[in-house]
Each structure stands twice: as structure tokens, then as C-alpha cells.
């Protein structure tokens, strides 16, 4: 029988994304624990406020949606400060123990993205991540004040860290605000380059109603069908795609139903991006919007996959169906996600350097060698991540890079090294798996001036058209901060709070 997840034990925003339920505002803030005992008291105090996954699947069938959520996670140094036993601490994976800054060579955080250039808050030890999501800024502020009062009660045992940058030029804010981007007064799913984001998040066993959501989002099987990924790819204490338990610390209750989170503040160089697509868009066959779509793998306005919709004419046809009143929501989702790249191995529709193709190649790494692996998606299934971020800041001038705007990127996975770091190192900043040598992914790659980055947009091998070369790619996204966090289950949180974690 399939395993039923204990949703009341798993923190919220893991099994289902808050963003999908209209929680379009968020505040992230960070704590330092100066005294282990007071830190644990603080945990006990905040525990009843922590939101679980249960929220989305009420036992009685009614959806009781709170107005505000709270979630918590700890860095390795945070777990040390909370005085977890050494034998438990020793069981955590090395990349988590090292933390994001020491992994900069693997992540490609160099030059402007070097930790030395990050926001002030990251120049000190960050112990605890707290996140408040809400449908309004007022409810978030209210919850923030409540938690701040809990912090106050510790009398210095726990402190809120300052040093976040703000939109009005502040450099010493105690929090990082984030929000969906609004267009004509309505929230959108877009980020600051104008792309609709977060479409093909993975689907795994234990999530509800996965039968039609799984198309293009689970794992591709040999017969062309899609199945949910193993729970253990995203939640600890459950078997993963190798039918093993993911590496996790002891005791089992410390790890089970927890996960690892990558938090990254990514600044978007909007001016450079716009200038770049304007300049190349003039000469690009198909124009600026097609070029932008080929950088990402999806058209900017509504996310139409460029591997299926490879020209403006096809896009117009696709839009007609997509926006038709006769089209159901389920059909729309299918239009957005139900595809793989096997009809497009040359990359003439969706280039192999495109963001969505690099970060989730679906079944295409067999490169048409049917049967090369157990299943077409075998090389992809263990490299998936759940994305749970939101944009931050506003863009006032589309021609400028400066200012505070970008994405608070949050990824959840069972192994940061195998999943997030691998994608970042091998698929974003390097192209060998895609037969593209060291060509980087265009949008996220850590492009340098020398040697300059290039990508090639291929054409159908049978056509007489020339491929398009794009050189001197500017660095479009910069890292401004981040850390690796452990997101404990409710059981683990209460055990940590009570100081009863016992690995023996």
C-alpha cells in the first residue's frame, strides 16, 4: 500500500506550496542563539505557532486556511547552539555542516557573488531561519511582533539579527520582506525579468490529488507515463529513488519528516537583462520575446513551453486554446507541464542551455538512446528540488541593475549535495551533460568577462537556417546571501525544545 504522510508532523510549505494558496507576502528573519537553554525555551514558546502541512488537508474535509503561517529551520551552527548531542550533530551531511559560504567553489559564488560581498547579515553566524507567510502585510507584521516578543522574553538568550538590506536603501533591517509582483493591482506568479516562475515543481508520493498533476512533474517511465517521485527525495525518513533512506542524523525521530532547505537571496540585474534581450532581439530570428523564451524554456507571459510552442504563430494558436473559456484548469496545467524534450533532441526548439531544460532535463539525458538507463528519467530523478521562494523588492527603472530586487530562492531536498548543489554546479554553471562543453545556463550562470560566456541556439539539422550564437553574456543573477538550513518535523522540534534528543 502507498504510504500516507503524517501531515501534522511535517512543517507547512513542504508538501504544498503556500504561494499556491494566495500567501503572496512573506517575511524572513534570522536569529542567533546566545544561550542554549534560553534558545530551547524560545522553541517551546513558538512551537504552537508553527504551521504544519495539515492545513491543506483538514481531517473533516473542510479547508481551514489560517491568515498567517510561521515556519522555522536551523543552520548547523544553530543546532550546535541549541546543544544537540555531538553524536547527533556528527550525523549531518558535510555540506550542511560546512554551510553555504564554504561551498562557494561548488556553487560558483565568485566575483560579485562572493560571500565577501553579501548583505551584512551574512557576515556573522546565522542560527535560525524564521518565515512568516500571509495574505496581507498586516497579519505578517502582527505575527512578527508576537515572535519578537518571545525573543524579548529570552533577555538576550536569543536575538534577532540585523543587516538585511531594504528597498529604501536601508542596510540594517531585522528582516527580509518578500512579495509576489503585482501587475494592475493583481498578484502574479512572475519574477523581475518578467518570467512566470515555479510552474513545474516536482510531484512526489504522499502529496494529494497527484494523478493529473504528475504529468511532466513526476518521473518519466519507459512507457511514456509519469509517476510521482519517491517521498525520500524530499522528506527525510522515507525511502528515496534508490529505495534507500536518505542520509540523516540519529535518532530517527530527529530526521524523519524533516528536510533540508537552501535559502538564497538572488539579485536580478534587470537593466542588463533588458539591454541584452533588446540588443540581440533586433537580429534574433523570431524577435526579442522568442529569444527571452529560449533563455528560459518558457514564454515570459504565461509560461508556454517553447519546446512545444516554438514560434510566435504557434504561440498565438496556443494562447487561443489556453485562454479559451472551454479549457479547464486541469487542461491548462497539462498544457504547461505535460512534455519532455525527446522530440527536440537537437534543441532547435528549446535550446539545451535553457533554464528549464538545464535544471530539469526530464527524460532527455538519454539523448534518444532508448533504453540507455532503467527509465528515461533515471539521471534526472535524483536531482530534483522543490522551489518555495518569492520575489523581493520593486523595479523602478527597467534600465538599471542597482536597487533591491530579485528572488528569495528556497529549495527543499533530502540531500543538498546530491540535488541542489549538483544542479547548480553541473547543470547551471557547466554544460557537459548537455553536450555543451562549459557553456553555462544563460539566466543563472556565473558568467565572467574573461573568458566570456557563450551559448548557441541550434536549428533543425535538416533546415538551411543558421544557428544563432550569443556571446559575452553578462551576469544576470548575483548571490547576495544565503545558508543551508535543516527544517525539523514537529516531533523533532519539540524534542529539541525539551532537550531530549538522544542518539544512543
Amino acid at each position, binding site marked *: 500500500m502507498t504510504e500516507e504522510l503524517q501531515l501534522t508532523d511535517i512543517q507547512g510549505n513542504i508538501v504544498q506550496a503556500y504561494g499556491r494558496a494566495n500567501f503572496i507576502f512573506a517575511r524572513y528573519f534570522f536569529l542567533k542563539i546566545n544561550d542554549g537553554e534560553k534558545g530551547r525555551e524560545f522553541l517551546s514558546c513558538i512551537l504552537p505557532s508553527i504551521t504544519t502541512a495539515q492545513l491543506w488537508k483538514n481531517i473533516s474535509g473542510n479547508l481551514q486556511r489560517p491568515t498567517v503561517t510561521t515556519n522555522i529551520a536551523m543552520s548547523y551552527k544553530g543546532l550546535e547552539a541549541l546543544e544537540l548531542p555531538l553524536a547527533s550533530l556528527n550525523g549531518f551531511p558535510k555540506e550542511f555542516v560546512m554551510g553555504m559560504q564554504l561551498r562557494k567553489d561548488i556553487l560558483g559564488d565568485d566575483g560579485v557573488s562572493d560571500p565577501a560581498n553579501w548583505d551584512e547579515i551574512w557576515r556573522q553566524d546565522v542560527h535560525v531561519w524564521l518565515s512568516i507567510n500571509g495574505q496581507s502585510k498586516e497579519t505578517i507584521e502582527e505575527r512578527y511582533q508576537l515572535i519578537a516578543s518571545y525573543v524579548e522574553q529570552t533577555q538576550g538568550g536569543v536575538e534577532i539579527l540585523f543587516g538585511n538590506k531594504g528597498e529604501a536603501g536601508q542596510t540594517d533591517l531585522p528582516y527580509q520582506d518578500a512579495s509576489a509582483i503585482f501587475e494592475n493591482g493583481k498578484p502574479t506568479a512572475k519574477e523581475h525579468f518578467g518570467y512566470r516562475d515555479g510552474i513545474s515543481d516536482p510531484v512526489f508520493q504522499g502529496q494529494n490529488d497527484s494523478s493529473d498533476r504528475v504529468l511532466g512533474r513526476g518521473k518519466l517511465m519507459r512507457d511514456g507515463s509519469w509517476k510521482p517521485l519517491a517521498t525520500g527525495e524530499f522528506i527525510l525518513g522515507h525511502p528515496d529513488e534508490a529505495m534507500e533512506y536518505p542520509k540523516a542524523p540519529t535518532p530517527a525521530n530527529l530526521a524523519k519528516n524533516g528536510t533540508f532547505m537552501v535559502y538564497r537571496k538572488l539579485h536580478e540585474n534587470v537593466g542588463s537583462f533588458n539591454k541584452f534581450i533588446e540588443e540581440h532581439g533586433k537580429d534574433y530570428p523570431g524577435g526579442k520575446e522568442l529569444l527571452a523564451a529560449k533563455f528560459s524554456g518558457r514564454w515570459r507571459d504565461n509560461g508556454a513551453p517553447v519546446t512545444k510552442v516554438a514560434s510566435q504563430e504557434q504561440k498565438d494558436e496556443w494562447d487561443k486554446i489556453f485562454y479559451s473559456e472551454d479549457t479547464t484548469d486541469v487542461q491548462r496545467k497539462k498544457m504547461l507541464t505535460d512534455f519532455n524534450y525527446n522530440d527536440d533532441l537537437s534543441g532547435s526548439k528549446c535550446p539545451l542551455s535553457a533554464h528549464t531544460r538545464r535544471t530539469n532535463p526530464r527524460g532527455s539525458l538519454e539523448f534518444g538512446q532508448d533504453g540507455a538507463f532503467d527509465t528515461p528519467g533515471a539521471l534526472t530523478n535524483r536531482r530534483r528540488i522543490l522551489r518555495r521562494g518569492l520575489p523581493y523588492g520593486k523595479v523602478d527603472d527597467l534600465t538599471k541593475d542597482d536597487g533591491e530586487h530579485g528572488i528569495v530562492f528556497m529549495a527543499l531536498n533530502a540531500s543538498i549535495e546530491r540535488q541542489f548543489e549538483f544542479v547548480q554546479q553541473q547543470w547551471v554553471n557547466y554544460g557537459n551533460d548537455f553536450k555543451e562543453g562549459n557553456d553555462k545556463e544563460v539566466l543563472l550562470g556565473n558568467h565572467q568577462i*574573461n573568458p*566570456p560566456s557563450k551559448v548557441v541556439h541550434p536549428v533543425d539539422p535538416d533546415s538551411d537556417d543558421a544557428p544563432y*550564437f550569443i556571446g559575452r553574456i553578462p551576469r544576470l543573477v548575483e548571490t547576495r546571501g544565503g545558508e543551508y538550513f535543516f527544517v525539523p518535523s514537529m516531533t523533532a522540534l519539540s524534542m529539541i525544545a525539551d532537550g531530549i534528543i538522544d542518539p544512543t
Partner: protein
Amino acid sequence: MANTSGKAYALNVLSPIKQSGENDRGYVEQVRTSIQNLGLHEQSPFANIPQTYLARLFILDDVVYESLPGADRIFNFSEILSIFSDKQRRAALPHQEHLKSKYLVFVSNFHGELDDYLEGMWLQEQTFIKTVWQHCVAFDQVNDLISFKEYIYKCQLDTTLFFNGSTDDSLQEQLKGLYVKQELANFAMENQGKSAEQLQQAYQQFISRVQLENLDGPSWKPAQSSLAVEGEAI
């Protein structure tokens, strides 16, 4: 045995290093020092040895002991017995084996015939060869090309599984190919979108600059470790 793959050759040479040493230093440490002091990349002696695709020198100290339980022919009986007694378990472990000597291992993948390669090696890098191999058994009998070849043949171990990481073209052809590929990408980026006439003119200039048929240059150098700064002639 598979010493060759097309025109590519895989050479394995194991030269025993003399026992003991001199001046309080073992010969094996002296060999280690001499290979540690070799230059890297463009400064490597292998950069001067014609047709070298990839070469390695290292010291084989000993074989690795794998303390796995013995596998019986039909059924892993000794493993079952080991549950009852540690003596049984120990008796079932394989014997430890050790090498009689420590070896200097020289591995090279190159283009062409072994005879020609060794000749190029001797002619170009005699000092390097004498420095690195001087403490190996019987190397004192090497004093000219013929005795060097004889020595290498005696120390050669056949390759059983040869995977060549590139084509089997000559080194100059491969380096030229990589150079032209890189230059062609730059040419495309600089000239795409131009009229047919402009493009043809630019292409003629490009062809006369890169000199496709001239393997001696312009090209990448053997063992080149970084790209030339844009616009800089190699």
C-alpha cells in the same frame, strides 16, 4: 592485448625502484621528489615529447589489501562459520600479499608507434628521463636510444582495457581542431547577421588567418593550460 586503439597507443611501464638508498634518503623518496619537482602544464617535460595526449608518473608503493572474507566455490561457508568463532573468521580471510619492489609507474597515451614515441622522448627530454629513472633497477645500463628502448620494452606491461579519451588523430591535428573550433565560434558571434557579401569577405579573412592546413600554427600549444586573452595571437 589492446595496447592500441586505432592510431592511439596506451603505454604502461613499471620500473622497479632500487632498494635502500644513499645519504640517509631512500631511493623511493628521491624518485618521489624528482617527479614532484616536474613542471606543470606548459612547463611539463611531456609538453616537449611529441604526440603525447596524456601522461602520468606515480609511485606504486604496494598492493592494497582487501580484507574481505574468502569466497568459497559454491557457498560462502566461511562467512557462516565466522558467526561462531573469530578464529574461523580470521582463517577465512585472504592472505596479505605485498610487492617485492616499489615501482615507478609511467603511463602515456600518445599517437603513433611506440618506437617512434620513445625515440622522440629520448631525443627531446634525455635529462628528464635520466633524472626520474636514475634510481630504478638496471637503468644504469641505459646510455643511448637503443638501450633506452630495450629498457622500456622490458618494463612494459600490456594494456588490457584501453579507453582513449579523444580521437586517434595526431596531436597537432587535435590541437588545431580545437583551436579552429574556438575561433569559428568567435567568428560566428562577430559576424552573424551580416550580408552575404560581407560575410564572405570576413570568412576569407578568417580562413587566411587561421590557416586550416598549417598544423604548425596558429594553433594551441601542447599542454596549453589556459585560453589566450581575446585578440591575442598565439
